């Protein structure tokens, strides 16, 4: 409908309004469609996240409960024998005393402590319950005997005494108690023999077995022989070392590089090339950084395999581009008027950067850095290539010691043969990793809002 300019101005005006109105309906419709699509996108994205969280939590929360066996253990002289513990005063030299002490400990290690564990289990079982020795020993975790031996080594005066001791139920027993294994399966498919299963149920009924919070997840290192006692401490400390290295290296180097490139470097073909390369580095698959780490840090520099120092260096390389790009973005966003104000006062370029530009961008740089570090925290692939998927059952005291890392621990547990037991434990490890990440992100948000308020 074209507007006829020959008609009266009033007519032309009302025609125009009609035209605008006709178009309006379509415009509003478009807007509504777009909004609807946006909301749908958000709902779908959040839905997946929610699904992930629900699944992980549903599986993981039961793993934070462990089954404890409350036993009354008798340190039977018939089993342990009555060799007295060596006393320093009886020996001429330190060397002789040490040798005797070691021999005493070695003798203790040779004893069959399982007999003591078994005896205490039978004491807790109903009178006349029939179960053979092999079957009854599937109920406690295999580390129960070490636990009792260590108690005795630490306190030899326990000989002949009876004390209450809590030991872990075995992973298979825990599966049976928590229902991780289908109770209706036939004997051939059950991990535990019928009398063992029956005894476990009896123990649960009479209070010999009870559930408690699984502190072992936080206080123990990984274990294969005693899966029920496997914990995350080693992996957690390994990850902590790596994060420390990343923060100490990637942050200063990244921020300094960004400041130089953004504020001081002359705009030339070389700086353009560097910029393109940094952007490309940020897009390099992380596993490539792992290969690089294996080739450079392990083969050339002979740094130890499986050590947080190498993991930290690799993750530093991986995080650097992210930090450089984010910092440059933040610096670029500083208003030119602030720079002019500083230069106009006779501030040198360095003074301008360090007195004015950096303080205003500090919150953004900090946030970007923390998010970069959080990203590195969850990185797994490069760590596999530098040997960090090895089974390490110790807490690394220095970054040069062999260690596990949280994401790799998840990967290892996910592959464990005892699926029934390790599936929940893997989910629990994921929950711990997520908690650390959420904590880091929370710190980033908190610091940012606090610093921005102050500025």
């Amino acid at each position: 409908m074209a507007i006829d300019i020959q008609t009266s101005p009033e007519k032309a005006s009302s025609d125009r309004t009609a035209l605008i109105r006709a178009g309006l309906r379509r415009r509003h419709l478009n807007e509504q469609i777009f909004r609807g699509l946006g909301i749908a996108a958000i709902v779908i994205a959040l839905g997946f996240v929610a699904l992930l969280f629900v699944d992980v939590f549903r599986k993981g929360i039961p793993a934070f409960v462990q089954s404890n066996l409350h036993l009354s253990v008798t340190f039977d002289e018939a089993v342990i024998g009555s060799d007295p513990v060596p006393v320093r005063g009886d020996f001429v030299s330190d060397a002789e005393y040490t040798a005797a002490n070691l021999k005493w400990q070695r003798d203790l290690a040779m004893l069959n402590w399982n007999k003591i564990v078994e005896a205490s289990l039978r004491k807790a079982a109903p009178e006349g319950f029939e179960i053979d020795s092999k079957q009854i020993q599937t109920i406690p975790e295999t580390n129960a005997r070490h636990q009792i031996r260590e108690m005795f080594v630490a306190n030899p005066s326990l000989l002949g005494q009876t004390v209450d001791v809590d030991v872990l139920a075995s992973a298979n027993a825990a599966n049976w108690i928590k229902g991780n294994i289908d109770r209706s399966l036939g004997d051939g498919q059950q991990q535990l023999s019928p009398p063992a299963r029956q005894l476990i149920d009896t123990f649960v009924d009479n209070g010999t077995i009870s559930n408690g919070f699984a502190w072992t997840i936080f206080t123990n290192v990984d274990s294969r022989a005693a899966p029920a006692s496997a914990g995350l401490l080693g992996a957690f400390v390994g990850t902590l070392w790596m994060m420390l290295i990343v923060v100490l290296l990637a942050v200063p180097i990244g921020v300094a590089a960004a400041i130089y490139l953004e504020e001081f470097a002359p705009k030339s073909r070389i700086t353009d090339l560097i910029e393109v390369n940094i952007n490309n580095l940020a897009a390099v698959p992380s596993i490539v950084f792992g290969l690089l780490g294996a080739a450079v840090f392990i083969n050339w520099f002979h740094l130890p395999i499986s050590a947080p120092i190498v993991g930290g260096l690799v993750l530093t390389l991986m995080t650097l581009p992210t930090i450089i790009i984010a910092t440059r973005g933040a610096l670029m966003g500083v208003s030119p008027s602030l720079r002019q104000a500083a230069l106009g006062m006779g501030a040198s370029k360095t003074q301008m950067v360090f007195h004015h530009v950096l303080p205003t961008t500090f919150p953004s740089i900090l946030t970007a850095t923390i998010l970069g570090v959080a990203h590195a925290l969850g990185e797994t692939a490069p760590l596999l290539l530098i040997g960090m998927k090895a089974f390490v059952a110790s807490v690394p005291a220095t970054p040069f010691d062999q260690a596990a890392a949280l994401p790799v621990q998840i990967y290892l547990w996910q592959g464990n043969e005892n699926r029934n037991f390790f599936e929940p434990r893997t989910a629990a490890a994921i929950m711990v990793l997520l908690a650390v990440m959420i904590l880091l992100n929370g710190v980033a948000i908190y610091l940012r809002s606090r610093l921005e308020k102050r500025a």
Partner: protein
Amino acid sequence: MDMLAGKVKKTSLNVDSTMNPIDVLERPIRLTARDVTVHYGAKQALHGISIDIPDRAVTAFIGPSGCGKSTFLRCINRMNDTIEGAKVGGTIKLDGEDIYAPALDVVELRARIGMVFQKPNPFPKSIYDNVAYGPRIHGLARNKADLDEIVVSSLRKAGLFEEVKDRLQEPGTGLSGGQQQRLCIARAIAVGPEVILMDEPCSALDPIATAVIEELIDELRENYTIVIVTHSMQQAARVSQRTAFFHLGNLIEQGPTEDIFTNPVNKQTQDYIMGRIG
């Protein structure tokens, strides 16, 4: 300000009038520009500007947008150095000293030639720290008491002290636009400059704040050589003693403000004054 004597050259006393020719205003010349050209890349922004700027008077640069008046102003304290691809030719002398000489340190130059920008741009710091920043980086205060005195006297000279004396530790960005601009003037004064460049200092302000700044400029000219770029011809007429008219990168006409506004020689100047271009 007396404590600054000997550290930063003070205005009048050090001017050697035998070296500096006398302007038509019967004032010694502080700044001399000869054939100043500016290129931004391939584009020439200024075509041979030559002008003398008298001591302790207000010189106004007027002209339509894009005429090069701000560009020329920024040559005087070498702020164009910070722009990628800008090339300045010709000579500008401050008291006979070439400010583009390789031996001259631009940091020292900017301490002697202060600048106030179009948009008030206080640092995101306290009012006190804003004013104290210049004296601090140039090492002008021997101790805290010195610094306090510089800050207070600078704020007084900028006519801001009474308004902010109870909140010196509050952020400068929390002030009103006009107050922010006076804070920027105080900040510039605190270094004890000889020349103050003002790049459309009132264009972001309301009429009342503008009037306050204009009064302030009038007071400041007793002690400082002021160069002001302005869009407003009325403002130029009100505050300046000399006016220079720029058009398309050329300096068309310059002279005592009264002459330029009442009796312009050049046709283009006439047209601009009458509102026919711009």
